[in-house]
Structures are given as structure tokens and as C-alpha cells.
């Protein structure tokens, strides 16, 4: 589904990603872990299409398309979803109108008709249950005045509504208490299918107790320095990141 090859990216002339190689197949969950400043958020930003980052080398193939060639909105339409670390507040735009506009834009680009009001509302009702919202946020402005936990639940709700092929969860666990973490994780797990894939970006292992990854990659200094199974996350939790950095230096 996603093939990243030798990806280099910079912001304001500073190189952050220094050659990333990663392949994600349908049905898989990949965790990307790493210390602060290792390039985790840069990777998610580059994949989502933020303009501030310049890709200096490498390629990203998504379902046979050159992802780096697409505008951010076209990536979303192709099936990429980024759950933001810091979801943006948009006063004056109701959550429900926002989602309806997004769904209809995506449908329009695929040459489909606008979603019927009845179908849309049924979908809202069904999907909002996944994250324990039951339509609670519908008429509130997008993320405005939401608590940290509410914002993250709203991200997963949007993900459920948009049904992406590849979801990238950027530090979704940050700022969540254990109850909210469970709700969010359960939501993500319920959305898992053999046809979609998930990349979980996190600093801590605790989220991976709930969203169990097939692969764990350790990112340090702009490169993936170690890849393993879910047990690698536990090892990191126990020993910290220093041993990995040392290993990387030796190698």
C-alpha cells in the first residue's frame, strides 16, 4: 500500500529526515517510535502534505501513485488520513457541516453524487458511537473549546466517517488519560480491516498496549535504526532509547 524509499526532507534548510525506508501493507499496523526530535512528526507531516517541508530525495508510493506529487487534499481523497497531534480549532464551522463538506468534496472528486442527508446522519450516528460521542459534538464548532481528550476522540470520529485506507495517528496518546486512551484505541481497533492500514506514531509504549502493532520501527536522528515486532516496544519502555542510539552509532 505504502512504499517509502530513501526519503529525505528538510525544513528551512535543516535536514530532518535522512533516508527513511518503510513498507506498509494492507491489514498491517506499524508503530513508529523514537525520542523527541527524531523526526516522527516530520514524517507524518511530509506524508500528509504540509507545504513547509521540502522533500530533497526519495520517493513515496501510495497505491501505485506518486504521493509526493499530490496536494494535501488529493492525498486525503486518495485515502490518507492524519490524526493530528494538535487538532486545530475552527470557530464558526460546525463539526457536522465540516464533515459533510469533506465527504461531499471527496465524493465529488470521485465522480459520485452528494451523500443523502439521511445516509449521512445514519453514518454520523453509527460512527460517533465508536468513540463514545453519540452525536455530542455535531453542532459545536470544530474542536473549539474541546478538552484534549475530546479533540483526540473527534479525530478518530472523523477517521471513522472518512474511512481512509491508511491512517496515520500522530502522538494520538499525548494528553490523554487512561480512560480516554482506551476509548480512542478501541475506536481505532474497530476500524481495523484487512483492507486498511495504520501507522501509529508515539513516544511511549502505553498506547501499544491497546493498539497492538505488527511491526515496531525505531526512528532516531532522521532514520529508522531498528525494526522488530511488538516486543521491541516493551524493550524500549524498559531500557529507554539510549541503547538504540548507541547501537546506531556503532553500526
Amino acid at each position, binding site marked *: 500500500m505504502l512504499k517509502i524509499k530513501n526519503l529525505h526532507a528538510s525544513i528551512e534548510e535543516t535536514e530532518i529526515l535522512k533516508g527513511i525506508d518503510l513498507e506498509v501493507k494492507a491489514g498491517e499496523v506499524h508503530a513508529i517510535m523514537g525520542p523527541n526530535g527524531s523526526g516522527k512528526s516530520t514524517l507524518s507531516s511530509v506524508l*500528509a*502534505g*504540509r*507545504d513547509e517541508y521540502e522533500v530533497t530525495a526519495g520517493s513515496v508510493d501510495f497505491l501505485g501513485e506518486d504521493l509526493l506529487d499530490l*496536494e*494535501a*487534499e488529493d*492525498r*486525503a*481523497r486518495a485515502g490518507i*488520513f*492524519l490524526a*493530528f497531534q494538535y*487538532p*486545530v*480549532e*475552527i*470557530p*464558526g*464551522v460546525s463539526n457536522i*457541516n*465540516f*464533515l459533510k*463538506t*469533506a*465527504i461531499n*468534496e*471527496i465524493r465529488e*472528486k470521485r465522480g459520485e453524487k452528494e451523500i443523502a442527508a439521511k445516509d449521512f446522519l445514519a453514518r454520523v450516528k453509527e460512527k460517533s458511537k465508536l468513540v463514545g460521542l453519540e452525536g455530542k459534538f455535531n453542532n459545536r*464548532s*470544530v474542536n473549539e473549546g474541546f478538552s484534549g481528550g475530546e479533540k483526540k476522540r473527534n479525530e478518530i470520529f*472523523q477517521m471513522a466517517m*472518512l474511512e481512509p485506507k491508511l491512517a496515520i495517528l500522530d502522538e494520538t496518546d499525548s494528553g490523554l488519560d487512561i480512560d480516554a486512551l482506551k476509548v480512542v484505541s478501541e475506536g481505532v481497533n474497530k476500524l481495523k480491516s484487512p483492507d486498511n492500514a495504520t501507522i501509529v506514531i508515539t513516544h511511549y509504549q502505553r498506547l501499544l498496549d491497546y493498539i497492538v502493532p505488527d511491526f515496531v520501527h525505531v526512528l532516531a536522528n532522521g532514520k529508522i535504526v531498528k525494526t522488530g515486532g511488538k516486543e521491541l516496544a516493551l524493550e524500549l519502555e524498559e531500557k529507554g532509547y539510549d541503547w538504540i542510539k548507541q547501537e546506531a552509532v556503532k553500526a
Partner: protein
Amino acid sequence: MLEATVKMSNKEKFLSHFGMIDFSHDKEAFSAKRRAAEEKIEALEFPTSKTEYWKYTRINKLIREEYQLGPKELDSQIDLSVPSKNCLVFVNGYFIEELSWREAETGIAFMPLSEAKAKEESLQKHFDSLSKKEEIFSMINTAFHQDGAYLKIGKGKAATSVYYILNISAGEQPMSNPRNFIHAEAGSSAKVVMKHISANEGHSFTNQLSEIVVEKDANLEINKLQTENDQAYQVSNDEVQQAASSLFKMNTISLGGALVRNNLNLDLQGSHIESWMNGLSLLDHQQHIDHHTLIHHREPDCVSHELYKTVADDASTGVFNGKVYVHPIAQKTNAYQSNANMVLTDEASVYSKPELEIYADDVKCSHGSTTGQMDEEAIFYLRSRGIGRKKARAVLLNAFLTDLVEQIGVEHLREEVQAIIDKKYAGVV
């Protein structure tokens, strides 16, 4: 002969355009007011860049332009349909009977001012009592106004019709001085729409003055829609006097015009008054729109709300200057003022100047002014959900303007304004 020609001043040249209007139909009481205003003009000068009240708005190009009194007819087909049983149409300041229509409601008088001057006894007493005698454009209007709308809603009457007043500029370089008088008697209520439209291309100058009297317990909403062409000039003075327990709302929607200056002055002369001043300006190209508001809180226990928003695109300029004056006895005044501006390009600019003068000690007054660009983070957030860049901008602009659109109490007009916003920014939510 050549050498002897005295160069006329800008003012003389400007005023010479009005020389040929025949005002002999006015009753003596009204003619006397014209003469008094002409005398005032003698001593007044056009504002310059040194005049504080006009600091951000240079009117040189406006007063140096060549104008003529426009034709008393429409030479082109334009859509005048409005969803109302009452609409007075003025072309270049003149009343056009055959384009207007009226369906009388009992207790409500709606007619051209020229007719009201002959028929309406109470007008003699009130006419020109609210205009600012030191303001040159007001005095020019008083001296040289051709016609305008007169609306009186009788005591306790609730108008069922929305009253429309259309002012149209037509022909080459026309200049007009429309003069309106709106009188909501005690306990009455009404909604009014004033539209300014161009049926021509090129320059025009409209110097409008409205006197608005809102008596005790009356409820009046005026919506002013300015959609003239991109070379039109307009100066507009709206003088409002409110009595105790009345409610007045003015929505000024400024979309067209090269240079537009709106002066809205509210005088709150009783207690328990509620006032709303709203302004929505969508500017592009070289447009320059200047809103000056002044509200006098003279008695205790009144509430005023003011909300002005501007979206400035291209190389346009917006000005907001809102002054709130709370007199010493006006305790328990609540005055809220907010000005928010969105500047879409590096060339566009907005000047915002809130002024509070408070001489009472037990009041709640607040003002806020924000000017910023479109929130790029929010745009990226919308794009990351599949919404295109253009649509994302439209969504955010709509969100920015929605509270003002909701202030418009005339449904058809609200829909019209929403449609204009949607078309202008090419998107709908």
C-alpha cells in the same frame, strides 16, 4: 477676458453642479432650511488629510471629479424586483413613480419626501433637526437634496411589509443628494431595506443623508446594502435619535463602490434603549470603505452592541472608527464594540480605531479589535480532510461572517447577502 477668469476653488466648482435644480416647489419652511444650510457651507471646507475625522480617507479624487445632475430616468434595463409590496425607486436622487409601487398599510405613510413636505405636518418640525450642521456633506445634502424617501410608522403600528428604498445611479457622471426621513412613532415596529445600485459604468457621487427618529418603545431595523459599481463614490450620513425603551438596529452591508464613507451617529436620549450597529464589508480591487460610528449614551440603563467585520482582498482598504461616548449620568450603561478584520493579501489594509469616552463610573464597556490573515493551520486541517484549498478558504470566510449575516432580520435580504458571499468566495458550507 482670459486673464480675468478667476479660478474657482474645488468647493465652488463642486457646488456649481447644483446651480440649476429648481426647488421652488418646497414650502417656505423647507426653503429656509436650504438657505440656512447654504450659509453654513460658506464657512465650511472639505476635509483634508489633516482633518482627524477623515484621517484615513482622502476625498480629493472624489471632489475633483466632473459631475452632472443625472437624468430623471433609467436608460438601461436593470432588475428592480424586490420581494415586497412597498418599494420607492429613485434615479439620481429623483423619485420615479412608474418604477415604484406601493400598497398602503393603515397607519403607515410611505412616499417621496417631496410629497411628504406638502402633506405631512409633523415633518416641518422634525426635518433637518438631526443633521450635523458642521459637517459639509450633510449641509450640501440639506441645501441641495432633490428627493428621497419618507416613511412614518404610526403610533403602535407593526408594519407587515418590508419597506424598500432603491437608489440608482444612472447616466454619465451623475451626482445626487438623496434625503430620507424615517419616523417610527411610539410603540411601532418596521423593517427597512435601502439599496444603492449602479445602472451605469464610470464615476458617480451619491451624498446621502437619512434622519431617523425612533420614539418610545418603537422597534426599527434598517438594512443598508451598498452594491454600486467599482468607480462609484458615496458619502452617507445616518443620524439616529432614540427615545426610551426603543430598539434600533442598523445593518450596513458594503460590497461595492470605489470610495464609500459611512457616518452612523446614534443619539440615545432615554433609558432602557437597545441599539445594534452591524457592518459587513467585503472589499476587493482598489476599494476603500470607511465606517465611522458614534453613539451617545445620555441616559442610564441602555445597551449598545456594535459588530463590524471586513474582509479585504487585493489592494483594498477598510477603515473602522467607532466611538462610544458615555455621559456622566448614563450609569449602568452596557456598551459592547467589536471589530474583526481579515486581510487576504499583503497589499490590502485595514485601519481600526475604537474610541471610548466614559464619564460614568458604573458601566460595562468593552471593545475588541482583531485584524489578521486567514488561518493557514485551519486551512491545512480542512485540506487534510479532503476539502480543496479554495473551498477551505470559503468555509473559513463563511464562518467568519456568519454571525453578521444572521443579524439581517429580512429573510430575503439575508439569503441575497449569503448568496453574494458564496459567489464571491466560490464555496458553500
